[in-house]
């Protein structure tokens, strides 16, 4: 691989460091009583309120409809995610130093598979929170479940829930695009050299 492509590949790997600092997903809740908004930011290692007190308040509101408490410490995914990202960074750097375009593609496919798995897992997690309700809940609306949307917005009783990727997600996306670009340029420039 060309040096500039190795550098680009290294950047693609290193971009993932941002995921340790920036949230990857956000769920915002809007209701008449919360004109200032209330919401959660999902990081690879934790879930935080958009304001420090939001998590407590969301848990407080959710208990009326029988939803489980969101307790970041008890969510297994938040324990697996940081080492998975670390693995991608390290392997990405290995590819940048010693790899070729095939290795780049392999890394990219692996990354995408992990990302899809992550989204599926996130959906299942939301499903569980939204459907697995305490039968003794104070407020029971027949047929009502409270699963937030994976992406987009959805009305849940008095709340409108908006779920969208956050900044960390776009760093991951940029990392994928860069790796794809490296693979693509290597292919094109390799062909050019053959043809000339």
């Amino acid at each position, binding site marked *: 691989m060309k040096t500039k492509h190795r550098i680009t590949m290294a950047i693609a790997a290193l971009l993932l460091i941002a995921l340790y600092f920036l949230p990857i997903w956000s769920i915002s809740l809007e209701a008449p009583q919360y004109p*200032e908004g209330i919401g959660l930011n999902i990081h690879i290692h934790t879930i935080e309120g958009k304001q*420090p*007190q939001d998590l*407590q*308040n969301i848990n*407080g509101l959710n208990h*009326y409809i029988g939803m489980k408490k969101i307790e970041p410490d008890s969510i297994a995914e938040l324990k697996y995610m940081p080492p998975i990202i670390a693995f991608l960074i390290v392997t990405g750097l290995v590819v940048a130093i010693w790899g070729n375009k095939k290795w780049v593609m392999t890394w990219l496919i692996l990354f995408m598979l992990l990302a899809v798995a992550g989204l599926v897992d996130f959906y299942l997690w939301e499903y569980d929170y939204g459907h697995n309700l305490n039968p003794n809940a*104070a*407020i029971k609306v027949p047929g009502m479940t409270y699963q937030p949307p994976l992406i987009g917005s959805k009305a849940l009783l008095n709340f409108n829930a908006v779920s969208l990727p956050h900044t960390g997600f776009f760093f991951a996306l940029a990392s994928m695009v860069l790796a794809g670009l490296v693979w693509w340029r290597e292919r094109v420039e390799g062909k050019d050299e053959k043809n000339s």
Partner: protein
Amino acid sequence: MKLANFKSLLWGLPVIVILSMLMYGCPSQQQLGANADAAQKVYVAPGEYDEFYGFMSGGYSGQLSVYGIPSGRHLYTIPVFSQEATNAYGYSEESKPMLNTTHGFVPWGDSHHPELSQTDGVPDGRWIFINENNTPRVARINLSTFTTDEIIEIPNSAGNHASSFVTPNTEYVSAATRFSIPMDDENLNNEDVPISEYSEHFKGTLSFIKVGDDGKMGIDFQILVPGFDYDLSHAGKGPSDGWSFFTSYNSEQAHTLLEVNASKNDKDFIAAVNWRKAAEYAAAGEGRMVEGEHYRNYVDHDTHTAKSELIEEVRVLDPRELEGLIYFLPTPKSPHGVDVDPSGQYIVAGGKLSTVIPVHSFEKMIQAIENEEFEGEIDGIPVLNYDAILHGEVENPGLGPLHTEFDDRGNAYTTAFISSEIVKWDLETTQVLDRIQTYYSPGHLMIPGGDSQKPWGKYLVALNKITKDRYLPTGPELFHSAQLIDISGEKMKLLLDFPTEGEPHYAQAIPADLVRPNQTQFYKLEENNHPDAVKGEDETRVERDGNEVHIYMSTIRTHFAPDNIEGVKVGDKVYFHITNLEQDWDIPHGFAVKGMNNSELLIMPGETRTIVWEPKKVGVIPFYCTDFCSALHQEMQGYIRVSPEGSDVEIAYGTGQ
């Protein structure tokens, strides 16, 4: 002097008083801006904010009310000198120390003059101070929480009317005794003497309260003054910064039937106090320390709990021994208000019985002091020559001029109590420019920033003493009326008329943008270091200690923990220490117990409050949340079982199942 002239006018006074009283029955409505223009100017659409916070003293309610201007909306009432059962101010264990005095616990006081803290002569939105007259006290209110943070008692004072006026950088809040009292020479202790010996024994004090950067108040010094009544004050600014001005009446030193006996002298005095010089004397250890027990009560923010500190001594400066502290400015006929214009050049007095408004010049005053143009001396205080210090007299200013505020264009506005009007005049020429009727008998008036160096001269609020026939009647007692007047043009225009709580004695206003961004929305639970706080339901418990039972309870939407308590007995002293675990704006919880001889509690999010209950009857007693907090608020309740004295029911408690 113009005494003869004045006397002949005085004859006309009863006629005018009677005439104006007859006119109450048929208020002239022609100046009421009851038109679309006025409505538009005061209309604040739903969800929009007022331009100014208006702070109006509660007078005999002892509190401070907050209004939106220009809408006249009542936003809030801040408890200050009186107990407030609504939120247990003065009833809860945490707030009771705020009302400690050397007379013991004093649950009521009359609040008078609010004044905003200033930086460089401009209101800065950090605090507002307000005084109490009856049991001399000064309070500091924090404008991030709209709660009373500190109250200091003023020793050697009897009636604290001439406060709480701040210097341009809030270096000092000044105060003065309204009533003089007999004070012994040694320690200024109130003496047992015949009242008829007033002139021999009675004295007054002017007090200067130093304010720290954190707001902490302490009496730096008091100045001994002759036994007159001291009425109102204002600090100098700009060129007159470093001076404070106090009006006095009863220079006759009468002690009975003052309406006649204190109205004899043609001139009383404004005391011009060189506070900067006095502060230097105090710092140099001049004067003497005397007994002067007084309380300083303050909120410890770490524990959200008020604490009391007894201070034993106070420094007293005597103008007979220390030169240049005070000069008397002769001022016609029982002056009431004294107001310094934004430039700091002019000192305006409101002579209650005077037919002119005297305007003194600060520059001329300093010259007169240098040239020693003295008419005499009272108790070591030089009396300056009236004509030497006079800038001018406003002729025909209305009857009973009381108070003056200023706009940012060189105009002064004075309330005329007897003729029920506000008179606008030019500070330079002292010519009357405009007048507007008020309904009725205005005392103070207020222009946002109108007593500072930066008036926001758009609105004027008249604070009227008589309300009848303005609103739907409410029996013999009526809230006082305030009137909002547009002063942005050449002619004053009445825009709005709204009732206010208690007696809105004086008021202040500040642009909302200087206060709103600093609001506390809830107290952070992790910063709550109240010794009886619980940080979660797992910490809630009930403990017996002799005949005291301590209940460490939490509230959250929508239950108490614990909500079933047993083992309490008749004769116990039950302490409910309740922590509101909410961390959300505008979610207080309330707490009340059936038959409790105390108040309810209102506990702000993240706060701990304690209330004491002494059960007297056997039975199961309900308690509940009093502040509608959520859909299941009505379910937020619990029971406490009270067993007979000496019974062996063990302490038991729980929530759930």
